């Protein structure tokens, strides 16, 4: 069955990608500036934000990773299409 993907699938995925990028940048920055408390708070705020976006995404479109942390799904659906590269 070829279900087209709703628009906000892309928006949520892009938001997740944006937050991931900020987290990576802050991660690299904190590696060399461990004592920078402001950056550390910012990192924690963004990782919390990422958890929310991931939860929103997974509640609607299924798990992002097969690590079982996806949630209440009763079916084994992490390998259900569409895959990220098909979207």
């Amino acid at each position, binding site marked *: 069955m070829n279900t087209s993907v709703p628009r906000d699938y892309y928006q949520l995925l892009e938001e997740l*990608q*944006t*937050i991931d*990028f*900020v987290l990576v*940048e*802050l991660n690299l*920055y904190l590696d*060399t*500036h461990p004592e*920078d408390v*402001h*950056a550390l708070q910012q990192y924690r705020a963004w990782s919390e934000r990422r958890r929310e976006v991931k939860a929103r995404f997974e509640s609607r479109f299924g798990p992002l990773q097969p690590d079982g942390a996806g949630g209440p799904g009763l079916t084994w659906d992490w390998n259900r299409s569409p895959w990220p590269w098909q979207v």
Partner: protein
Amino acid sequence: MFTQQKVYHPYVGPFDPCPPVRIKTYQTPPQLYLGFQPPGLPQFPPREALRRGTLWPALFSPYEGRRRDSAP
């Protein structure tokens, strides 16, 4: 116009086997001059940071590609 792209002119000898490349370009991104990044630098908003490829405007380094006239 300020640009991070610099040029140099290689020596062109009379017996060069191939057509000479008169202008060569190289990039001088800000991290060459920044040294240890000071804390508290201004940041891009997240979406723009993703577009620009860095969280800090001070470290942004656009790459316009090779100069047209630098082609051999």
